[in-house]
C-alpha cells in the first residue's frame, strides 16, 4: 500500500470528521488523536494542511511496517 495513493481529502476527513476507524499502529492513534484535538481549536485550511503533512510524514517514515500497512488499507477503504 503506497501512502501517496491516499488523497488529501481523505486525510482531511480523517482529521476533521472523527471517522471511527479501528487502527493498530500506536503512533498513528496518538498522532491522529492530537491532530483531531488541534483541528477542533483551529480548523483553518492552513492548520489542516499542516496536520495532513504531519500524517504524511508519519506514513512515509513507517510505510514498511505491517501495522501501518494494515491501517493504510483501512484508510483507503474508508474512501470508498
Amino acid at each position, binding site marked *: 500500500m503506497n501512502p501517496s495513493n491516499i488523497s488529501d481529502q481523505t486525510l482531511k476527513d480523517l482529521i476533521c470528521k472523527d471517522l471511527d476507524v*479501528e487502527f493498530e499502529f*500506536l503512533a498513528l492513534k*496518538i498522532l491522529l*488523536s*492530537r491532530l483531531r484535538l488541534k483541528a*477542533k481549536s483551529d480548523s483553518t485550511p492552513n492548520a489542516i494542511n499542516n496536520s495532513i503533512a504531519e500524517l504524511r510524514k*508519519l506514513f512515509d517514515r*513507517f510505510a514498511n511496517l505491517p501495522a501501518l500497512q494494515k491501517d493504510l488499507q483501512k484508510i483507503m477503504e474508508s474512501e470508498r
Partner: protein
Amino acid sequence: MKVLFKVSEVIDKIKQGKKLLLAGDENLLRQLPAGQWIAGTIPYFMAEEGGLETREHLFVNELPSYISNIKITKYSAGTVANVYNDAPPNGFSIIIIPAFSPTHFAFALNAPQFPNFATSQLIGWISGVHLDEINRQKPKIANGETLEILDDGAIVMHVELPENKYADLNIINIFTQGAGDTITFPADGFKATDAEINGEKVNFADYLTAKKIDTRLPLVANYCGAMINTSIQGIDQQQKQVTFYAPVFKGIEYKIAAPIDDYITAFMKQLPQEDTGQIFFSCNCILNYVYSNLAGKKTGEIMGPITFGEIAYQLLNQTLAYISIKDLA
C-alpha cells in the same frame, strides 16, 4: 532469561563493548566504567523471579549484536524538543528522564508539540527512587560515555536497526474508560482546580471527594482506540486542587477507569499474541507495582524496570510500554 546482574558482571559486559540499557541503584551505577550504556535509577523490577526490589543488582537490556550504530545524546529541558528529529530513519530511541525534574515536566507537557512528534519510535521511562526515600533522594540518569550522573535532563540512546529489521512499539494498559462522567479540563497541567463534568464546571477536588472516587484508578482518555492513562497523585483539600503524575490536557475527554478485580489476570489477557520473546525492552509503572501488589508475582515473560512514568511517544501512567525488534517480511 537472566536480567539482573551483579556490578562485576555488568563491568565485564561494558569492557566487552556491549551496548547496554541499565536500571538500578545510584551507588551501583557509580561503580561502572565508561562505555556504550545509559541508565536510570530505580530499585524495583519485574525480573525472572517476578516483581522485586534490589539495590544489589542492575537490570540489564543488552542490545543484540547485529546492532552496530547507536548514538548517545544528552538533552536538557530546553533541547529535549529535538528528540524525535534526532532519531535514526530505521530504528528507535530509548529515553530516560529523572522524575520531578524540569525536563520531566517539560517533556510531559510539551512532547505532543515537539517537531516530528510520533514520527520516530520513542520509548523510555522516568527514573525514580525507593518509595521510602522520595523526599530524601533525587532520581538520576547516567550517561555511560561520559560517566555523568544527572538529576535533570534526558539521556537517550538512538538505535539504528539493519534494513531487514524494524521496531514495533506498543503498550499494555489494563484500564479502560468506566461508564461514568465525561471529564475535561480548562488547561494543560500536572494540577487542576476546575474541571467540567459532562459540560458543567465544578471543583475537581470536591467532585472526587463527593463521589468517593477510588483515586488509585487513573483518568483514561481514548486516543483513537489507544487508552491513555493519567494517574491521580493526590487531593489537596485545603487548596481544593488535584495533582497528577502526568499532565491532563485541555480538550481531551477523560473518564475514571473501570475498576479492575485482579491485575495479573487482566494483564495476561492483554499480552500480545505474538512471541513475547521478541520483546527487547519494557517498563511498567510503580503504581501498578504498588496498587496491584506485583512484588513476587510474574507478568508472563515480560520483564523490565518499574518506573515513575512510562514513555511511548509521550508520557504515560499505569501502563506497560514495550518494544519488539522484528524481521521485515
